[in-house]
């Protein structure tokens, strides 16, 4: 079995396709051929379909529900209402944020599209006919869609179930529509700095309500086997194990009798983290009927009811010396959570990690307060392609720095440079409580500015302004700058949990006798390419080719427990678990190799894919040989086999960063924009697969483009959702998507086993302020300070009109 093929070290490294390899995505063979297996592809014998009667009103009392006619529709088997679920205690369910949410309308509805009744039928068509036949009588109540108005003394009471409860899951409530106040930092010290500062820039920055809008909406298939008492639940779950635990806690079914499977998932972006009424109703319907029940949202259901993102009103004050050194930051957020608090944040962080809002800057003192508010809008507030509320924080600080630059009459690039945390300040303790692991912001910044010829752009912009004033052009040029710092990879169990579940993650590896392997993880890919990249991490750790390693996720019966995929936590947490499990494999392999080579463990050194006797390079055992021996050779003192499991509790978060620059042309007369150039430099620490990173950056930037330039969930005064279809909810096509130039620096995380930080969300976090700052910058010469997103044609036109540029 000795492999004696002479092969160079470089060739052996190449063959592994380990960390750093541009390995092609192994998932794509099935996805590009339409052979993926998504929830809606699952078909089971006798399977039924469930769908919802939804409220047309944003706030109304449910006077009566008459299901008689619906039950007569051919194919309709049952119509569930809150009255049916109440005896089981399932008419309400806990949210991930410590609140509770109606599964089906219990006496009233709080937002348009809220679930009122669940129609179960033999097929989708019958269910749709049944929905139309359910007669619901509503009595309309006054609607509140503005979080500031919701806090007025005479505002209507939205959550009657909470009346009199003046302490919520996150402390005292100040008003009947108030959820929590979350404070960080030093209020008195910050206010003292503001009072004595040379310059204070003050502004309200709104990050509008939008939606993750994954290509595949949410759905599930619940199948209760009444013979063996086992419940199988297929679903679009970003956290299958957490869903299993939640289902067990809600239903009382013991956890070993629940099997949750996340099959292929067509994008999540935070939308598929939470638990939805559809899951509960499908499970109940399966128990009631004894048949599998499928529920799959349509696009309107998805946009109007399952988790939205953002809706943060961020009032900021930033203090500086007249030379531009930032001396303090104050922020108050009014957070619109909709009808229920269904954010998906770690328990101790009701506003997520918004306290990363000091950004990339060395700000000595800061204060943050966030007030959560109920309104008559859909619940959610999830992290849409970002770590918990990090994109809000990045947008806030990157707007405040631009506004400060205006106040100081300074160049915004230079203002950033003089305030960046310096490379020798890491690990850096921020004024709002974080320990930044590593960074080199100045190097990244200078590289980015040089790459776009920043000086040249500013010169061109100044000339353009002059030409505009002379009437020679109607187009302005905007240069959008951003330097963002993320906080991802939640997180250390000591302060990060969701519903009490610690936010570790896991990897279990089994090496097969012939030198291939299977690795199972507690995460679940939704398009990130885990099967590709985790195999690469492992290939580098254990010296078996990535092509010989199967990565499996998403089945709670086989995968080790983990908290799932969101908040860029897969690589920082499960990726670390993978490396650590790999190292356990390698440690045992070293003992086996020592036995086979008849030397002491310490006489061996690791070399790519083998252990070599120190000083005798011709004496070695490859990992493939060791794998075979581990099963088939009796080795004194060692159990047979080669397996390992690691549960990784990260010592800290990781802090990816980047420098983005957007150059935008704006037609002042029509509000139409054109992205002339977009440069994105990312530093995500160690780069596992540069091709996948580039794909992630392109995707994240395109979502950022959407959010900044048009995408929103908008309501009218009556609480009607005005953007419930893709006609009005902007999702860019190839046509609207510009060319992106990607670049990188590499500053490894000092505490992550392979130095990786996570990258999937960086482009959304950094992209939104880059696009938005470009719009603002184009009008800076004419006096614009702040104009809220999304910057669609009419809002850009409105800026120009307001500045008197239409003559």
């Amino acid at each position, binding site marked *: 079995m000795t492999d004696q093929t002479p092969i160079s070290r470089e060739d052996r490294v190449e063959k592994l396709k380990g960390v750093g390899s541009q390995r092609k995505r192994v998932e794509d063979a099935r996805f590009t051929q339409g052979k993926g297996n998504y929830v809606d592809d699952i078909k089971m014998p006798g399977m039924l379909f469930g769908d919802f009667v939804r409220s047309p009103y944003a706030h109304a009392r449910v006077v009566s529900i008459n299901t008689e006619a619906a039950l007569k529709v051919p194919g309709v088997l049952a119509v569930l209402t809150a009255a049916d679920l109440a005896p089981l205690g399932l008419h309400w369910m806990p949210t991930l944020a410590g609140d509770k949410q109606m599964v089906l309308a219990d006496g009233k509805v709080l937002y348009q599209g809220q679930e009122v009744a669940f129609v179960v039928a033999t097929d*989708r*068509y019958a*269910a*749709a*006919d049944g929905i*139309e036949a359910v007669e619901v009588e509503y009595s309309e109540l006054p609607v509140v869609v503005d979080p500031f108005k919701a806090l007025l003394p005479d505002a209507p009471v939205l959550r009657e179930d909470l009346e009199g409860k003046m302490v919520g899951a996150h402390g005292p409530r100040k008003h009947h529509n108030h959820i929590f106040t979350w404070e960080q930092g030093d209020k008195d010290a910050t206010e003292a700095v503001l009072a004595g500062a040379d310059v204070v820039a003050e502004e309200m920055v709104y990050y509008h309500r939008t939606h993750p809008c994954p290509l595949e909406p949410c759905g599930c298939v619940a199948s209760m086997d009444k013979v063996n008492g086992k419940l199988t639940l297929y679903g679009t779950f970003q956290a299958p194990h957490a869903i299993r635990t939640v289902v067990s806690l809600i239903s009382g079914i013991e956890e070993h009798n629940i099997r949750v499977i996340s099959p292929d998932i067509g994008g999540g972006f935070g939308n598929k983290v939470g638990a939805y009424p559809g899951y509960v109703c499908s499970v109940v319907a399966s128990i009631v009927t004894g048949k599998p029940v499928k529920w799959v949202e*349509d*696009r*309107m259901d998805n946009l109007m009811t399952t988790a939205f993102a953002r809706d943060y009103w961020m009032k900021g004050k930033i203090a500086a010396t007249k030379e531009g050194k930032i001396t303090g930051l104050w922020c108050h957020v009014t957070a619109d959570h909709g009808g229920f608090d269904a954010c998906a944040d770690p328990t101790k962080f009701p506003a997520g990690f918004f306290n990363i809002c000091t950004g990339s800057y060395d700000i000595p003192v800061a204060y943050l307060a966030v007030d959560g508010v109920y309104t008559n809008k859909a619940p959610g507030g999830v992290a849409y392609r970002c770590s918990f509320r990090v994109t809000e924080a990045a947008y806030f600080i990157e707007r405040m720095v631009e506004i400060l630059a205006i106040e100081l009459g300074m160049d915004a690039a230079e203002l950033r440079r003089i305030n960046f945390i310096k490379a020798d300040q890491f690990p850096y303790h921020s004024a709002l409580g974080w320990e930044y692991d590593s960074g080199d912001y100045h190097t990244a910044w200078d590289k980015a500015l040089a790459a776009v010829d920043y000086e040249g752009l500013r010169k061109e912009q100044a000339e353009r302004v002059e030409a505009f004033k002379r009437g020679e052009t109607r187009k302005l040029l905007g240069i959008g700058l951003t330097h963002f710092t993320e906080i991802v990879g939640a997180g250390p169990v000591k302060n990060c949990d969701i519903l009490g579940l610690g936010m570790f993650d896991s990897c279990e590896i089994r090496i097969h006798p012939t030198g291939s392997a299977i690795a199972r993880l507690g995460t679940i890919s939704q398009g990130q390419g885990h099967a590709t990249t985790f195999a690469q991490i492992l290939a580098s750790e254990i010296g078996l080719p990535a092509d010989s390693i199967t990565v499996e996720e998403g089945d709670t019966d086989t995968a080790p427990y983990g908290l799932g995929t969101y908040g860029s936590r897969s690589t920082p947490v499960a990726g670390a678990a993978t490396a650590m499990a790999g190292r356990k494999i390698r440690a045992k392999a070293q003992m086996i190799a020592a036995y086979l080579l008849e030397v002491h463990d310490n006489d061996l050194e690791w070399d790519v894919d083998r252990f070599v006797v120190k000083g005798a390079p011709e004496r070695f055992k490859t990992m493939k040989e060791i794998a075979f021996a581990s099963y088939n050779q009796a080795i004194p003192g060692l159990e047979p086999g080669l397996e390992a499991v690691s549960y990784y509790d990260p010592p800290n978060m990781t802090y990816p960063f980047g420098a983005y620059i957007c150059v935008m042309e704006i037609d002042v*007369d*029509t*509000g*139409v924009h054109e992205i002339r150039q977009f440069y994105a430099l990312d530093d995500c620490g160690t780069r596992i697969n540069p091709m996948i990173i580039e794909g992630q950056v392109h995707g994240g930037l395109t979502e950022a483009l959407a959010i900044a330039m*048009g995408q929103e969930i*908008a309501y009218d005064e009556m609480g009607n959702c*005005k*953007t419930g279809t893709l*006609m*009005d909810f*902007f999702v*860019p*096509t190839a*046509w*609207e998507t510009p060319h992106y130039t990607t670049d990188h620096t590499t500053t490894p995380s000092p505490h992550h086993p392979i130095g990786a930080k996570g990258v999937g969300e960086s482009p959304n976090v950094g992209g939104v302020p880059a696009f938005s700052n470009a719009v603002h910058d184009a009008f800076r010469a004419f006096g614009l300070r702040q104009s809220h997103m999304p910057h*669609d*044609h*009419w809002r850009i*036109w*409105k800026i120009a*009109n307001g500045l008197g540029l*239409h003559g």
Partner: protein
Amino acid sequence: MIPARFEYHRPADVASAIALLSEHGDEARVLAGGHSLIPMMKLRMAAVSHLVDLQDIADLSGIRIEGGRVTIGAMTTQHDLIVHDGLAQAAPILREAALQIADPQVRYMGTVGGNVANGDPGNDMPGLMQCLDATLHLVGPDGSREVAARDYYEAAYMTARADDEILTAISFDVNTGGYAYEKQKRKIGDYATAACGALVTMEGGTCTAASIAMTNLADTPIWSEEAGAALVGTACDTAAIDAAVAAATAAIDPTEDNRGPVAFKMHVAGIIIRRAILRAVSRA
């Protein structure tokens, strides 16, 4: 997004289709490309008990150019318009406009007839057909008749077509003058925030014919006779174009929607109309 139950009919000739419409009255609708009707049915905003699919009626498709006249069958797709060489010569504005309708997948299915007949103010072809002074050919139980595109539209989704009539073809004179179709939209697939078709013929530096029509700026397409008249007889200088734009914008009546409020649309319409005229003049 599931339509209510309906009967599906697929007649092989126009007479059979008319017979089905006569039989089922206002419970029946004809189906062309389906890109307006099917979504309305899926949203249950349109209840159609009998759907009469026209795709098997071969006579309804195709583009004919004879004797200075272009005739386009109602079931001709937007894609057919784009790839037809003769049409690109005979009426280049149609190709330019068709390329601005939705995306290739929609254009493979969406038909000229459906676009024209439906009366959706967001559709591009109605304004274009008014710009070209097209004639619409309708067939019903009592035979065929012709209606000028400029007389066809009454209000949103309300047209001169009776419930039991089918639009079979559209015809217009070859137009090789200067042309332009300008459209501002939020994204591919969107209806226009403002759109304008312009046809301008110049002879010896003087405009001899001009036609200006607008899309999605009122509840019907708007052809402005005054805008065209403001150009005819002039050298299409700034003053004439100002007058044409003023006349055209006076004729529109946009409403507020997610694209923006009325003031914005009025302003953008003025810009788009001016650009269309300028580009048409530059090609004349």
